[in-house]
């Protein structure tokens, strides 16, 4: 306890005139005898939200507003976490409010909230109720169905999940065919397996692992989406279904650690699969490779100005800021420059928490995409002469940022590269 003077109140007197220390403080009686009118608002909505598993902290908000200026969606629209609390106080359950789907669960508001009001738990809880009532944007429902049917959000054939490997230029063993334990089970992830730009990262990773002599294998067609973004978008049943499929598969094989490409997968395996029965060492690929930089043999210099976008689910929500930077700084020639919004205050790309599958819906409620805002920041940081690179470490981002580079008129002026692509480039002999 700090040493503060103690004021003791013995009783309350009501006087016509009061003089304290020679000063007349008489005046009309102004003490508040009735409850403030705020409790005239209906409490049902707040009671309902805080009754949901995960919704409890909504009531703790005391409207300080620190969350609003750090919210990436607020920068491009009217949305703000504090405003959600006001809406609920005034009786809205948010089920029919577009705001319900704008939060990307990036976690920047939770970082600064003195009351620890946590949208990473609140939003999935309310969204789950919306999903159960059929109040779900069509494009999100479409992606949920693809995840359900094919185990990936693109609706591609599950059987073709490892087709990228045929063009990797190095053998990519399937653990089912290896018939022995491996050091690294590499969980390739959805967009890395199927998206054209994701596959570039997968092939680069395969070549880097091979060059480093890592004993690795992949799951191939047995791999399913980690499901984390479906969980954050309110489909906990879909998440559990996918997680159970992955856990059944993982439990068939012996490996020392799981290395994943996607920060969302990292978040799922690290923080949410344990309660469903899988526990083991899981590393984001930057965490796995960072201690190995001394073994990397560089054959060319990458003379580029590079800035780095912290993925919300690697950086802010899981505390890993250094591994990606260790890798970038080890690449000969790269000049690493930080953007104003960096590390814990990194700006969200807009793809998390289901945002990846809500672009059309969200576009009606924002002045520009979060990815566009971020690309402008990158351009301002590394310039527009074509030597600037926006480097990323999340498979959601190459497609999001490359689209944003085009839509902001920066085509040819800024390049988007996964860190693994830059590493692989420097490990190859210079092509020029």
């Amino acid at each position, binding site marked *: 306890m700090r040493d503060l003077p103690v004021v003791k109140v013995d009783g309350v007197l009501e006087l016509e005139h009061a003089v304290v220390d020679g000063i007349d403080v008489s005046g009309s009686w102004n003490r508040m005898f009735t409850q403030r009118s705020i409790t005239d608002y209906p409490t049902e909505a707040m009671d309902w939200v805080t009754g949901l598993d995960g919704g409890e902290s909504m009531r703790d908000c005391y409207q300080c507003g620190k969350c609003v200026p750090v919210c990436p969606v607020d920068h491009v629209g009217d949305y703000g976490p504090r405003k959600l609390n006001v809406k609920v106080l005034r009786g809205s359950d948010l089920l029919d409010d577009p705001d319900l789907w704008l939060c990307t669960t990036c976690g920047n508001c939770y970082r600064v909230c003195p009351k620890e009001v946590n949208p990473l738990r609140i939003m999935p809880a309310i969204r*789950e109720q919306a*999903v*159960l009532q*059929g109040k*779900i944007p*069509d494009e999100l*429902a479409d992606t*949920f*169905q*693809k995840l*359900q*049917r*094919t185990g990936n959000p693109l*609706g*591609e*054939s*599950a*059987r073709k999940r490892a087709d990228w490997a045929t063009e990797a230029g190095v053998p990519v063993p399937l653990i089912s065919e290896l018939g022995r334990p491996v050091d690294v089970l590499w969980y390739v992830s959805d967009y890395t397996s199927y998206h054209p730009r994701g596959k570039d990262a997968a092939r680069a990773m395969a070549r880097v692992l091979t060059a480093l002599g890592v004993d690795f294998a992949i799951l191939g067609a047995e791999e399913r989406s980690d499901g984390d973004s479906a969980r954050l978008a309110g*489909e*906990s*049943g*879909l998440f*559990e*279904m996918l997680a159970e499929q992955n856990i059944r598969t993982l439990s068939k094989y012996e490996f020392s650690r799981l290395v994943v490409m996607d920060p969302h997968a990292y978040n799922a395996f690290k923080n949410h699969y344990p309660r469903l029965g899988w526990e083991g060492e899981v590393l984001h690929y930057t965490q796995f490779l960072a201690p190995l930089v001394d073994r990397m043999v560089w054959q060319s210099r990458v003379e580029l100005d590079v800035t780095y976008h912290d993925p919300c689910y690697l950086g802010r929500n899981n505390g890993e800021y250094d591994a990606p930077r260790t890798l970038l700084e080890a690449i000969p020639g790269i000049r690493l420059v930080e953007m104003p919004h960096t590390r814990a205050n990194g700006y969200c790309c807009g793809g998390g928490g289901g945002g990846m599958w809500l672009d059309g819906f969200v576009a009606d409620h924002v002045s520009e995409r979060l990815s566009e805002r971020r690309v402008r920041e990158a351009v301002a940081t590394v310039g527009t002469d074509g030597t600037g690179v926006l480097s990323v470490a999340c498979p959601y981002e190459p497609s999001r940022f490359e689209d944003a580079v085009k839509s902001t008129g920066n085509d040819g002026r800024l390049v988007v590269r996964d860190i693994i692509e830059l590493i692989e480039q420097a490990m190859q002999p210079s092509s020029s």
Partner: protein
Amino acid sequence: MELVVLLKQVPDLAEELEIDASGKELARDWLSYVTSEWDEYALEEALQLRELAGGTVTCLALDTGSVDELLATCLARGADRVIKVGSYERAPDSHASASAFAAVLRTVGHDLVLVGVQAIDDLDGQLGPLLAAELGLPHVSVVTHIAVGSDGKTVTANQEYAGGLVAEFEVDLPAVLGVQTSREAPRYAPVSRVRQLMKTATIEALDAPAAPDGGLIVESMSLPTASGHAEMIGGDAATVADRIVAILAERGLTRTGAAS
């Protein structure tokens, strides 16, 4: 109003289809199954009609060994009662399906029976007509809109024709309708609810007398062979224009005939 919907599963085209060694069947190793798209329209339409006219929605599916999830999904979307019918190693053809459904519909109450007008695995569109014939009920196919009459004893059903023509039928109930589309996209069935229902819901089972397949026999199956292909014309505008002129001339489509 007692609404009954008949549903089945078909191969999911997310996977490329392959023909097995016998040359008469799809290779099933990698096949996954989804509810037939038109059956989903029929269910959505039934749920919409129930909202307007009241009553119950009952879903029936032939038990081909993997229909529990299909029926739980029907419950998740809002069906009142689900029943699997008979027991089959593989999906029977439309004739056998119609007689099995007809047999159980003699004990399951129905004012309006909705079926998907067709399915991608046979494209014969015969289940509705065959079932209606067995039960002696009126039937309309390719229905795009259904409205229940004010007396609750008839429905009007729209059928679309080429050229934008629409026929409107008044149909006495009970009746069988083949549904082409629903007024709204089929609602999403949350996996959370389907999984819960898989554990807790009652899926009834009714026997159906075995009926011989009476329709088509598949003698062989083959992938369509590609005949001809598009020519991509490259180069600048003048080169492309020259090539187009040359092609038109080759085919005798220019006024001056073949270019000299």
